[in-house]
């Protein structure tokens, strides 16, 4: 029970996407004999809660090895992810990192919004022994393998396709850009900050890449055969898509889905996800409260990055900073994932499994 005596291979630092999921967890762990609480009362308490380790996780590799980790909930308020609350949120992430270190985890991955603290200066973490990663390399890996897989299934030639990346100047967007730049016909890049976007486009053109960039999506969408959405905004509006456009929505909150799912002629899946083939357990078993995917054993790429690095015993700052993810690093971690029985997740979206998409050869 002494926190220092047992060592953990990894820690996953995360936050919930909505108060609804926090509410279902809290009511789920409340004694059945007492009333469930309404969401506002849960906010009154858990909106203030410091980060906490909620459950342990054990995973098995294809090789037979086992790794042990812990999930740390930051209790970042899902309604307060905007820049206004940055200071409070960063302080919660830092507390979560200290907790991971106190629990003796060798490596921590910073899921979802929490990765923000690794994109800036890391001076404040230089005194702690725990290694940190954003998990963005394996996330990018699953996004890109998803696109390649979709191309095979739909008989689309990637090298003849125009690929639109929404959020191209972000860490994952840049990773996708550099991986795809020699593999596609044209790159169509979008983000809001024009200067950063232009700088990126110019450097790509200097490398001979065929590239268009625009802060306005309207001019790019009609040209795109494939769309990768890796921005952190649900306000993105796209219309005039090509028929049978393939869309990988990997951002949170889901960037495009809410508005697009009604359209029949698009193929949209949640990207950046992997599937664990050799099983895992949560202790206590809080899986029902935290698991809401239409298929079993699915997890985010950023979470799985820590798991794979632990299986490989590579306790290092694998993905840090912004724009540092190389195609080699993506290929390496993807190969290690396969070695341990972690593969690309089947395609699904909020309607459920994309049946046609998964079975079509």
């Amino acid at each position, binding site marked *: 029970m002494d926190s220092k005596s047992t060592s953990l291979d990894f820690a996953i630092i995360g936050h919930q996407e909505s108060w609804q999921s926090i509410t279902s967890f809290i009511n789920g*762990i409340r004694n059945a004999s007492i009333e469930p609480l309404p969401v506002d009362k849960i906010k*009154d308490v858990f909106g*203030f809660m410091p980060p*906490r*380790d909620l459950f342990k996780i054990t995973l098995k590799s294809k090789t037979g090895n086992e790794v042990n980790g812990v999930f740390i909930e930051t209790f970042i308020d899902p309604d307060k992810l905007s820049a206004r609350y940055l200071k409070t949120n960063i302080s919660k992430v830092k507390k979560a990192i200290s907790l991971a270190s106190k629990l003796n985890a060798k490596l921590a991955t910073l899921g979802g919004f929490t990765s923000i603290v690794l994109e800036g200066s890391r001076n404040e973490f230089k005194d702690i022994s725990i290694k940190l990663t954003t998990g963005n390399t394996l996330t990018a890996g699953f996004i890109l393998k998803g696109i390649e897989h979709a191309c095979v299934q739909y008989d689309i030639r990637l090298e003849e396709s125009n690929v639109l990346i929404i959020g191209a100047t972000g860490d994952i967007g840049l990773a996708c850009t550099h991986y795809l730049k020699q593999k596609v016909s044209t790159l169509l890049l979008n983000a809001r900050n024009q200067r950063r976007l232009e700088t990126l486009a110019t450097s790509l053109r200097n490398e001979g890449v065929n590239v268009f960039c625009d802060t306005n999506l309207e001019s790019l969408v009609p040209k795109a055969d494939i769309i990768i959405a890796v921005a952190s905004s649900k306000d993105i509006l796209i219309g005039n898509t090509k028929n049978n456009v393939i869309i990988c929505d990997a951002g949170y909150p889901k960037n495009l889905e809410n508005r697009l799912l009604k359209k029949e002629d698009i193929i949209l899946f949640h990207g950046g996800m992997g599937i664990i083939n050799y099983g895992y357990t949560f202790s206590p078993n809080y899986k029902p409260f935290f698991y809401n995917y239409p298929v079993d054993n699915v997890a985010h790429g950023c979470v799985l990055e820590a798991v794979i690095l632990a299986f490989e015993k590579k306790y290092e700052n694998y993905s840090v900073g912004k724009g540092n993810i190389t195609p080699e690093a993506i290929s390496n971690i993807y190969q290690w994932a396969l070695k341990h029985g972690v593969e690309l997740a089947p395609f699904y979206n909020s309607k459920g499994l994309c049946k046609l998409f998964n079975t079509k050869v």
Partner: protein
Amino acid sequence: METLTNNFKSIEEFQVISDVFSQAITGELIGMSNFASLSGTIEDPFEKMEAIEHANGERQHAEGFMAYAKKTGLNININLNGSYWGRIRDVFLSYANKNDFIACLMIQEVMLEAFAVSMYTDVGRVLEDEAQKLFLSIAEEEKEHMDHSTEILRSELKKNPDDFIRKIEIIHYECMTILSEFSARTDLSGHCGVCHGDCMKNSLHHIGLDVVTMRGNALALYAEALDNIGIPGEKSVLWIANLPA
């Protein structure tokens, strides 16, 4: 009325500050009584004397609040037997009567002090001048109590983690249920017997506070106090989730 106009911006402010001081004084007197009872549970003569010294410290805090209240003409109501303070005292005494030093420490120095430190800090930040200094300096001293007992409780946990955690869980539900009802948006077990008229919770905005933030901060500090003792987060989240809200 003269003192009122001199010291307070409005009658509402006067009333809510009166209630804040009434709660603080009552709480300090509960703490004083608890430490005095605690000294009875202790074998070690030096620790015994220290408990009395702590009781005296709480007495001085109560006196400090009382002196300020008198000077500024606040309307103070002290009631150690109200529906929350009285029950807290009963829980404490049930352990003091069994000479259970660890349980007493947990109730007084962790649970009650977490609420005191956090709420005094919040109040201190919005009050001005002497009242501000008073609340913040007392919060600081109470924090030292918390740190001191954390050391003791941490080594107690190491001796037998499972038994210790089981014991703290029982005390948590006995004591924190009362504090949780007391600090909820509306009193969950009726009037506190300290506030004048309606509960001050509805009037805290007159001094720039609100009960949700104060309670949230207090529970957060309590959670951190449990972390510092070495209670796994997995347990504390469960315990806090199961409190009335």
